[in-house]
């Protein structure tokens, strides 16, 4: 494609300034480039391979109730433990193998399961021994067997493989801390300024390299994900919009290798039936938007969906569940060797539960993620130790070869 020629004939403007014309070209989609002005460590030229395997890490904050998401319909105890919740589904469950079934809101995920690009893993946990959301999330993001607020497993992974990441967040979440190859993007609910002001600022920043670089990079990102002009102000940061934007920032020659998304609202102590109908639909539609945004890249993508811990096996007195232990993990994407349910089912009888209360975890989330890294990003065992010093990877064929 031929680049549009930039005409700068205004003698009022120094040559470094943006003309209005260049400006519009820059903010328009297509030409835009996501650059990382603050990071000197990057070498863009010639490094990029066409089929670079991508990873999206989605953290469900608040502890997803896995028993209401991947329902063990075969387990005799299930209905006894959850008389209300087990009858709260508004339409039929979506069948998986071994008698498991997906929540009816997860239509797209079920479709992917049938296409063998979804792999649910039951009864997992991070190793975090308690039940505090914040510590549990920090633990899952640190990935070291202890909480480290300044270093995350995904950051360590991209450092090893010299990859670039994007956090769809206002500031860098723990998962991506300790690498300088991370950029952040998040829609602000401030109204966008007029284009004139950007052009004027670009001129004003001609002697200030770092302000100028950030401005141009900011305009490029905004051009890619589209601005809000003309639209009525809606709720900012809807998951489906964040997913769409995330996909846009991952595709194309300068797309990032991996991204992190977050979605909250899973702490369902009450009215769980209604809330999860809605939340799981939001999750399902967001992931579908991510897939369609990634287009061809979906084939090279693994989306890892995790949560800090599970919830009680028994429903509580307010139509919900309380903080528990074992939960679930989803691997989704064209690169995933799915269509099965992974993990060992511990059973729901009182003596099979953890502390007679929670789903007993039988496998470790980090070992599954390490399994993904070794097959999808070709980590050696030595390299994996830098990411997860405390666990051994599983060795299942979970990625298509």
């Amino acid at each position, binding site marked *: 494609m031929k680049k549009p020629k930039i005409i700068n004939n205004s003698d009022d403007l120094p040559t470094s300034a943006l003309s209005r014309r260049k400006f519009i070209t820059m903010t328009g989609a297509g030409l835009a480039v996501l650059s990382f*002005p*603050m990071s000197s460590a990057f070498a863009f030229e010639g490094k990029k391979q066409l089929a670079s395997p991508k990873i999206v890490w989605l953290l469900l904050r608040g502890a997803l109730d896995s028993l209401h998401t991947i329902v063990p319909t075969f387990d005799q105890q299930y209905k006894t433990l959850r008389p209300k919740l087990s009858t709260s589904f508004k339409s039929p469950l979506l069948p998986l193998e071994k008698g498991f079934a997906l929540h009816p809101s997860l239509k797209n995920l079920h479709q992917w399961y049938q296409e063998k690009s979804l792999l649910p893993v039951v009864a997992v946990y991070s190793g975090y021994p308690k039940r*505090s959301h*914040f510590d549990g999330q920090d633990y899952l993001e640190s990935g070291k067997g202890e909480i480290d*607020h*300044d270093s995350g497993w995904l950051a360590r992974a991209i450092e090893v493989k010299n990859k670039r990441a994007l956090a769809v967040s*206002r*500031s860098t979440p*723990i998962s991506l801390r300790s690498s300088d190859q991370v*950029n*952040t*993007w*998040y829609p*602000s*609910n*401030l*109204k*966008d*300024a*007029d284009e*004139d*002001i*950007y052009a*004027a*600022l670009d*001129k*004003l*920043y*001609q*002697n*200030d*390299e*770092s*302000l100028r670089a*950030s*401005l141009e*990079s*900011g*305009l*490029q*990102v*905004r051009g890619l994900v589209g601005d809000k002009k003309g639209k009525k102000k809606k709720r900012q940061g809807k998951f489906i919009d964040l997913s769409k934007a995330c996909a846009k920032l991952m595709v194309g020659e300068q797309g990032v290798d991996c991204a992190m998304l977050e979605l909250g609202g899973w702490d369902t102590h009450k009215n769980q039936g209604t809330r999860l109908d809605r939340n799981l639909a939001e999750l399902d539609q967001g992931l579908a938007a991510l897939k369609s945004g990634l287009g061809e890249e979906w084939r090279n993508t693994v989306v890892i969906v995790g949560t800090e811990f599970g919830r009680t096996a028994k429903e509580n*007195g*307010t139509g919900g569940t309380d903080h528990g232990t074992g939960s679930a993990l989803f691997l989704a994407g064209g690169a995933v060797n799915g269509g099965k349910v992974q993990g060992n089912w511990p059973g729901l009888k009182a003596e099979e539960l953890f502390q007679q209360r929670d789903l007993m975890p039988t496998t470790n989330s980090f070992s599954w993620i390490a399994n993904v890294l070794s097959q999808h990003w070709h980590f050696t065992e030595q390299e994996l130790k830098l990411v997860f010093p405390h666990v051994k990877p599983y060795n299942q064929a979970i990625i298509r070869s």
Partner: protein
Amino acid sequence: MSENSMSSTIISRANIAVNRFGYGARGDELAQAEKDPKQWVESQLKPIKFNGDFPHSNTILIEHAKYQKEKKRQKKQQRKNSQSRNMQDKKKAKNFSRIALRNMSADTINQAIASSNSVSWRLLDFFSNHFSVTAHGLLMVGLSATLEREAIAPHLLGNFEDMLMAVEQHPGMLIYLNNEKSFGPNSRMAKKHKKGLNENLAREIMELHTLGVDGGYSQTDVIELAKGITGWSVKRPGKERGEGFVFRAYGHEPGARKLLGKTYSQKGIAQGSQMLRDLAMHPATAKHVCYKLAHHFVSQNPPASLLKEMQATWLKTHGNINAVMRCLFDADDAWLNSTQKYKTPREFVISTLRALSLKKYNDKALLSTLINLGQQPFNAGSPAGYSDDELDWLGASALMARIDWSTMVSGYSKRVNAEKVMSRALGSSVSELSYRSVLRAESSQQALTLLLMSPEFQRR
């Protein structure tokens, strides 16, 4: 920092006094500072006193205990279905903490905006971030804003040792870093209830609050300090009499401790107290805190000679913060005549509102602005606090948000004359380019936006 990140414009000493050391000029402060910039800065160091308009941490602890009790009671009664009034009580108690946090966060910022000694407010913010706590979980939502008011402000111009002691005994810090439930493995408490040691607070005291990560301590030292402060806890209202800090002797690890080569054979609370006093006066602490002060107030790379003088003053004056700050203001190295740092979102917002003297800015808008710009009060998410580095604030997304916000506040200030604001905020320390851009802007709103987003206003 790379040289090209600095503006080459020469900035006056009065500008430095007001913008580098304070929160920017309000009214005619720049003119006042012109007579004797150094004297003006030194006269800015005044104690900060908070009045009693907002709940004390003890009140928050009581309200929280009530909330927990009500929650428990409701859980028991759930099947009886008579809960509508109590639900409201529960909600009220829950909101109590949120409202306290919102009001106190906004009050600190509003006072900094209105203050005629903004240098002291910068210093308060520095130490509040040095001893950073995050409002995660309902109890910390309530407590986090009380720490700077109750433990930091009273010692702002006093000895660091006293500030350290007040902070480490404050319920906000004890609960944030889990020391309230840390008990010695050989204490009576541990034997009876199977409770154990939690190293969290001890580690952060050495790594962040005093010696610094390279301060020469080992994992053994962390455990020794953790044992030394076992039993430093917080009373549980409703379950025991009184509120606030309590030393639980039955949870304290018995025996002598050895920290950084020195033996502490004191009994009870005296053991941990002496450890903290020694840590406060340790040369590594002088080095660590003086570096952070100079890095915050002066430059990304503070000159070695400045650091040396500050450390010497620290050790000579028993860590007197007032004396150390005067030493900083006294040093020629602190007055480098080009801008040295990029303002944090908080500094940018406060200095903007001081420059504009905007009246209609309400608390909700103020806090939402800081959320959008990435520096929500008491939400750093790590005990290390918010970053003080340009690299972490000058990201693309962050800059775009600043531009959007500047445009918005400029829209509120249509009658404001940008040239006049520029002259009051920056004086003559403006590049030809910025000056012309502001004067030639197509509207007064655009002129003001350009001024606020100019390198001279963004940097200090």
